[in-house]
């Protein structure tokens, strides 16, 4: 059975890019959120196998989204996907509970390698 993935990014273009990488690789995109608040609500509702979230989003930022989700679902598989590659923020994201960090722009191989490492196919 294909793994369920939730995507959160305020840029519909980036969600489309991720979708174009993940769906042909056998992942099922079960939800898309364009802000942090919506992402948390969708996570509760959909309980995906994997959650990929942007860092800078309206309403609730990525780090707070991770903290909120991890508080309720300690085993959540979360990957941050952001253009900000500063070490302090990567560390902060991992400490908050993210399992990995992808810096935008990404290439297909890198995204799939990171995701497969966490949830497999």
């Amino acid at each position, binding site marked *: 059975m294909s793994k369920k993935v939730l995507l959160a990014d305020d840029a519909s273009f980036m969600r489309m890019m991720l979708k174009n990488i993940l769906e042909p690789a056998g992942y099922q995109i079960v939800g898309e959120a364009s802000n942090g608040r919506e992402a948390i609500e969708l996570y509760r509702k959909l309980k995906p196998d994997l959650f990929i979230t942007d*860092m800078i989003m309206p309403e609730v930022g990525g780090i707070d989204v991770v903290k909120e989700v991890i508080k309720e679902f300690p085993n959540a598989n979360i990957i941050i996907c952001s*253009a900000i590659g*500063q070490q302090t923020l990567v560390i902060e994201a991992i400490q908050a509970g993210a399992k990995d960090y992808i810096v935008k*722009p*990404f*290439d297909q191989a890198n995204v799939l390698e990171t995701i497969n490492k966490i949830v497999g196919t």
Partner: protein
Amino acid sequence: MQNEKLSDSQRDALKELSNIGAGSAATALSQLLGKDIKLNVPEVTIIPIEKVNEKIAKHQQIIAAVYLRIYGEIQARALLILPQDKIFYIIDLLTKKKLGTTKEFGEIEQSAIKEIGNIIISSYLNALAKFIGLNSVPSVPALAVDMADAIIQTISAELAEVGPDAFLIENEMTEEENDLSTTLLILPEMASMKKILKALNDTIKGS
């Protein structure tokens, strides 16, 4: 700080900082577009805020301006300017459409431009963090597509809130024969401009 001259070593350090930022920006754009991007050494200058309008107005056509705020150890505004014809070309490459297909800005095109702006500006912020140790993050980007004069009116209220000087970074980038040059304005608040120059000094002394 207004009209203060940069020392030669500060100018060199600033140039190096811009080189790193421009290099990451070109790499990012190249990865996004799946094309080789050639980069010339970027021109970086500090200009008085009153000159910002002139720099935008020189584009006598419709431009796309990605605007965002910068928070953290540096408080600033950033504005990335791209002429409309270049944007259409970039979007065609990005969405793998036949060149010349994109002629208007739909939702996905606007989202793509904002993301390009976000990635290019973040490349500079990442360079700033690496080179002089000042960590900062951008806000969600906003986009305005209009004639240069209208863009100036849109941002005039914001310009009133920043310090008296701005960084002007002119990136000369080409993809094959196509000019993809961008103009990036970083408009720090006064305290942040001082912080950046002090950090540059510290970097020079430490190197």
